[in-house]
């Protein structure tokens, strides 16, 4: 359900799309939990370039189903089945 692009894929072995099935847990999954899970299971190198504190590194945009996560509660957004979470890095030249 998550796909890092815009350079962020480089921290994930260059893989742009990840179809993931999250294990069931008592608490509902939100973005905060998802980031922890990604850090533990998907991140291949230098986690500090993706996650800082309990959120994404400032400068990485997050789109939930192609809409800005700032409109959707950011870390508190509760994941639904088939959600598409996109991480786009703005932190490079151009």
């Amino acid at each position, binding site marked *: 359900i998550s796909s890092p692009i815009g*350079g962020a894929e480089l921290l994930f072995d260059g893989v742009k799309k990840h179809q993931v099935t999250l294990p069931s847990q008592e608490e509902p999954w939100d973005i905060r939990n998802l980031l922890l899970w990604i850090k533990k299971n998907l991140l291949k190198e230098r986690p500090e370039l993706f996650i800082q504190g309990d959120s994404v590194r400032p*400068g990485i*945009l997050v789109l939930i189903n192609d*809409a800005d996560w*700032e*409109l959707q509660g950011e870390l508190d957004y509760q994941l639904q089945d088939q959600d598409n979470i996109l991480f*786009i890095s*703005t932190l*490079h030249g*151009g």
Partner: protein
Amino acid sequence: MPVPRCSGPCGGVRPAALRRPRTGGAVCRSCFCNAFEAEVLTTLQTGRLLPPGAIVAVGASGGKDSTVLAHVLRALDARHGLELDLRLVAVDEGIGGYRDAALAAVRRQAARWQLPLTVVAYADLFGGWTMDEVARRAAQEPGRARACCTFCGVLRRRALEEGAQRVRATHIVTGHNADDMAETVLMNFLRGDSGRLARGGTLGSPGEGGALPRCRPLQFASQKEIVLYAHFQELDYFSEECVYAPEAFRGHVRDLLKALEAARPSVVLDLVHSAERLALAPAARPPPPGACTRCGALASRSLCQACALLDGLNRGRPRLAIGKGRKGLGEEGEEQSCASKDRGRPIRAGAIQAF
């Protein structure tokens, strides 16, 4: 949390797709893209940046900014009859593994948009020096870990000028965005470079000493909006960091600015605005520049920055050109960490005042 409806001109017909950093407004994809393009048009028109008939060299790096710039200029030209003759000019710095992939992106863009593309290479322009060679030489000098972007910024500015002259351009546009501008303002503050600080707020340079006029049509567009615009328009761009960029001072400033932005989303544009309000005190103004004795370009010393730099390299002493002894060039500094993020000539530090 349900996505709010668009508060833009569509009247809430569609769900919002982003929150705009400047206004905090939630707008849909379509209203956003229209507003983004309209704002670039306003920047062009307010500053009278590109007159009808202009032959415009677009500094193209394959990255997000220049990609969005070329796309928007092309769209605005077609829609509003701006009578622009757009030509892509890309600079091959000779950075193995990095620039090759970026240039491939520029070539795809040129083919898709049917725009002429000219590539100018450091190696051809600068007597065989590639950026990798320069970096290797600079690394042999002790304590110059941050020098790469300093060299590259100076040389790239010159290379873009050369490329633009070759395609007979009348104007140069670069993809600097509001975040780049704000980073530069902060860096100039942190380095005490009041001369640059005071000049930083203008829309570009009018073209002096034979140089072509330059402008930055995206300088009020935030990084976030540029990236989202590229995403929504499905633009194909290259998004890797230059191998030398992690060494640059700009990186620290960028992190600081991003942290500030999290607390105050308008901080980027506020900083750009701050720079617009600054002017040099009369006593601090530098003497008018002369011409480089070697190439004739505008220079505040006998050699312009690019010639002084190459001179140092060719004599096997790159520090000659960038060390403390040459304060002006030191001030030019490492800020040019990414393609076409170059600025004007150096002027002496001095007091600033707000007007």
